[in-house]
């Protein structure tokens, strides 16, 4: 008989297995959680991934470095700009290509806007999972403006392919800059409204405080990165620790909390939105004039034989690219170390002992993107 309806021995007669997903709305994509329950309490949880595996790493071995550019933003479709630009920066570092100053600043502006849009989507969907529909509308209204702004320069709303080896495809115009500044001002005024609506809401706080603890030890063992790690009290951020691009020129805080519960992860991301806004404003105020593409980009990208690793901070954490070149135009191997893969693995430990209703909040608070896990 199938596991689901089997009645066990006396002592485990009260326990049963439940599949949460792969179509469950709170799993944000196609994730299946195999839960073993006693009443409403989870005895063990096993996340099952792979439903959106498209073998990006295999595709990388069958095309040249330039042809792989559009794939990058399709791994993590919520921070596609960061992935796309990060891949360009990795290749530029390997082949030693200088990027013009203006392009560096434009990249920072676009990446941080992308980070805000990712956090806004997470904000809205977390609240919707918890039963609050209104914040979702607020977040999507604001996120829509970012998508419009990025659409102006890149021509895409989600799966950007704006970066090129040596710069970016298009220069930004005055409309882009004025709309970005107007948006920053708008969102800054909006954040107090968000706080009144959500952060200070006692129902929301009661649902999020004290559940889903991911402590420092768990972070360490599971190699958790990003906002989840910072919520546990570890001040780690690739932008600060291993500066890439021109991030060392900006003044920004790395928000941390100490508890590592759902509410702490929520607060870290909310504060990150403000920090990203500040980076965008600093970058616009310093934006130099000049070209946006390096004058001499080799027609054939064929890095010297060897192994390379490059990491950037995506909206979810440490995104690392391990690239092996055999000296030709086609990479020998590319491996992507994606943050959600490690962050989701903690669920086996974290969900133990919590209830199904809390599972929705916990899963929402770690902010997973399944296509990035499955690659």
């Amino acid at each position: 008989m199938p596991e689901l309806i089997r009645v066990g021995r006396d002592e485990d007669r009260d326990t049963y297995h439940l599949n949460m997903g792969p179509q469950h709305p709170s799993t944000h994509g196609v994730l299946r959680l195999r839960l073993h329950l006693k009443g409403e309490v989870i005895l063990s949880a096993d996340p099952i991934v792979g439903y959106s595996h498209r073998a990006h790493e295999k595709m990388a071995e069958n095309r040249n470095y330039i042809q792989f550019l559009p794939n990058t933003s399709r791994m993590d479709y919520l921070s596609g700009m960061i992935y796309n630009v990060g891949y360009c920066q990795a290749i530029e570092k390997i082949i030693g290509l200088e990027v013009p100053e203006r392009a560096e600043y434009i990249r920072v502006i676009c990446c941080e806007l992308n980070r805000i849009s990712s956090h806004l989507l997470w904000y809205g969907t977390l609240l919707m999972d918890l039963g609050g529909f209104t914040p979702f509308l607020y977040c999507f209204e604001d996120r829509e403006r970012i998508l419009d702004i990025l659409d102006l320069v890149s021509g895409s709303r989600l799966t950007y392919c704006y970066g090129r080896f040596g710069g970016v495809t298009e220069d930004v115009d005055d409309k882009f800059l004025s709309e970005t500044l107007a948006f920053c001002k708008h969102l800054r005024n909006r954040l107090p409204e968000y706080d009144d609506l959500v952060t200070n809401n006692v129902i929301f706080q009661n649902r999020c405080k004290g559940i889903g603890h991911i402590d420092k030890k768990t972070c360490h063992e599971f190699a958790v990165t990003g906002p989840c790690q910072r919520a546990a009290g570890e001040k780690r951020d690739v932008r600060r620790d291993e500066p890439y691009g021109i991030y060392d020129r900006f003044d920004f805080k790395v928000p941390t909390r100490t508890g590592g519960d759902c509410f702490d992860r929520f607060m870290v991301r909310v504060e990150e939105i403000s920090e990203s806004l500040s980076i965008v404003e600093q970058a616009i105020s310093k934006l130099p004039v000049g070209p946006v593409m390096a004058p001499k980009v080799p027609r054939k990208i064929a890095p010297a034989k060897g192994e390379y690793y490059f990491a950037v901070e995506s909206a979810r954490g440490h995104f690392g690219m391990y690239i092996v070149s055999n000296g030709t135009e086609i990479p020998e191997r590319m491996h992507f170390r994606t943050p959600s893969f490690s962050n989701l693995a903690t669920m086996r430990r974290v969900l133990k002992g919590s209830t199904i209703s809390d599972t929705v909040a916990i899963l929402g608070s770690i902010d997973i993107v399944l296509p990035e896990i499955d690659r």
Partner: protein
Amino acid sequence: MSSPVLDILWSQFPHLESTDCADTAAGCHVSHACRREDLVGISTVFRESGYRLEMLTCLDERAGRKMFRLVYHFTQIDPVERHRVLVDVPVGEQAPTISHLFESANWYEREVYDMFGVSFSDHPDMTRILTEEGADYHPLLKDFGTIDGPVKGGDDA
């Protein structure tokens, strides 16, 4: 490059071949070529020195060296110090698991098994993770092939 962990490693594992990569584009500070039988011992040293297992992947080098090569990244986060450990696994043989030392290795090793068919001895759950249950292929093997072959482009288009 000097680091307390290097002194421990070199004194305990004379067969370790280390290369300093700190000033290159390699993205790690030191790269170590390690014997398969030393892997668990080396991992234990990294674990006890406060490193985390950041990444694990595999390379299919059956065509040239008749080997699979496992690539481990052990990272200290403050200050950042990244060690790359390379381990050769002959075709058809197993690698030792380090999932009892690093929780993150559990899923990473499953991914390597799924993609390359390299299995890890004593792993608590050596099953596929990304492809479906009961699949009879390992997609990242070089001879797995693609439907259309290499994508044409550039001068060939």
